[in-house]
């Protein structure tokens, strides 16, 4: 009968020859192969000391960005939490008080912002959803912990320190930067001193 794919092979169940039945030549050959591996370069990378090269757009631990003046960009709109397929993000919004303008960029901010790193699948959808360029995934790796609760990262771990900014420019590919030129995202632009004067006057 004509076979459909011509890929089938006839299985031959031939008797083993005498040398094959002895097993020993095959065993010795196997031992020769394993011995050669004794002297080969090891594939292991000793992790904490040495790290394997990662892509520049690696999606690791999140960061909550501050703007140029050090005010938190997050406005607790909740779009990241909605976008999150693993439901890892929760937040509690609060209203900015007078005198907190240097702390929070917008009138509304996240009083509590938590990401459960055990739930997170590092897909980056929160970053995509964020209209305020506030949350980014970085090339940092979430460290191990002994307790489950330690994996729930609050603002203390997520918000970047004012004096130790986290560089996320690597995640901003040309296509992303082009997209963000859209006038709709003008509110995320670099802080313009004249604009800030105007807003202060408006208050």
């Amino acid at each position, binding site marked *: 009968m004509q076979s459909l794919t011509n890929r089938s092979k006839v299985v031959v169940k031939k008797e083993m020859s005498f040398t094959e039945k002895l097993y020993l030549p095959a*065993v010795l050959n*196997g*031992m020769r192969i*394993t011995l050669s*591996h*004794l002297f080969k*370069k*090891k*594939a*292991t990378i000793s992790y904490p000391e040495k790290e394997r090269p990662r892509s520049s757009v690696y999606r690791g631990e999140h960061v909550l960005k501050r703007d140029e003046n050090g005010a938190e960009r997050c406005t607790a709109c909740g779009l990241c939490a909605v976008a999150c397929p693993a439901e890892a993000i929760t937040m509690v919004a609060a209203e900015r008080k007078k005198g907190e303008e240097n702390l929070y960029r917008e009138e509304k901010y996240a009083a509590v912002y938590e990401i459960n790193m055990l739930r997170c699948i590092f897909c980056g959808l929160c970053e995509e959803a964020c209209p305020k360029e506030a949350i980014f995934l970085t090339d940092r790796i979430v460290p191990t912990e002994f307790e489950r609760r330690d994996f729930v990262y609050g603002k203390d771990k997520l918000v970047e320190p004012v004096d130790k900014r986290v560089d996320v420019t690597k995640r901003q590919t040309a296509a992303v930067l082009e997209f963000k030129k859209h006038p709709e995202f003008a509110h995320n632009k670099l802080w313009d001193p004249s604009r800030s004067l105007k807003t202060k006057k408006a208050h």
Partner: protein
Amino acid sequence: MTTAFIIYKIILVLLVFAVSLGIAAYSTYAERKIAAFLQDRLGPNRAGPFGILQPIADGIKMFMKEEIIPNVSNKFLFVLGPAIGMLTALMTGAVIPWGPNIMWHGESLPLQVTDVNIGVLYLLGVVSIGVYGIMIGGWASNNKYSLLGALRASSQMISYEVAMGIAIVTLIMMTGTLQTSAIAAEQHSFWNGHYFSWNFFKNPLTFLIFFICALAETNRTPFDLPECETELVGGYHTEYSSMKLGFYLFAEYVNMFISSAVMSLFFFGGYNFPFMDKISDPNIVALIGTLVMFAKTLFFVFVFMWIRWTIPRFRYDQLMNLGWKILIPLSLLNLIGTGLGMWGMGKL
């Protein structure tokens, strides 16, 4: 029997005991390292430099684990099992000559705990008792996997002990003695004037049979069916925890060390090394000889591990076929052939 003699023997016993345990402990480390290296990994390297404290960490872990004795088990036998396993493993070291005699204050002292004239029989006997440790442990656990593991262990032991016994008979025919020290002395140096003096060169087939049987006797791959994880969970030690499990695992390594020592003694000249007659000081000969003995032994330990990480385990019917249909006829033919050869050379 003077006090000095007793003190000397006690020191020797403690030394053999400590060295067996120490080497067994570091065999676990070596096994993991060799396994890793053969698989292009690094192996344990965190506890101390290169991970050399790993056996100590493992030991502490074993002692810290919860001691579990199943309610349905026979408690006395359950504890007795690993104890027998460990005891017999350590007892075999007594008849092995670890080195040439040392001279001390004009007295020649053997580096052997006891030089009984039936040393080979003693070895066979003690090794055979070793399987009781596995059998008792497996049976007392009252667990079907343990029982199956124990059954496999005992049937495997019985099957391969026959071939091993015949191989040893062949060896004894050649050496003409059951005394281990005499077997070592007969293989003096490396070249006895017209031929190699080591038994391996006189009859390599006997060594091959003995080696295969030694793999089976120590339950090492490819004959590690008693603890076949894929079929029997953990085999005979499924129900064991804590240091009782540690004893079983440890006994395997002690057995491996001792059978390596026996192989180097029976077939590779034991403590003998080439050009040993050129050195006049007997103590230096003893020192080098002991080191040579350990080097040979550790080489065989390495071969055991090398085999384990190279070839897969036999199926049970293959194991029995190999034991009964191939090894036993082969060793019988070898026995007859050796006899005929010796008759031809006029040595009978």
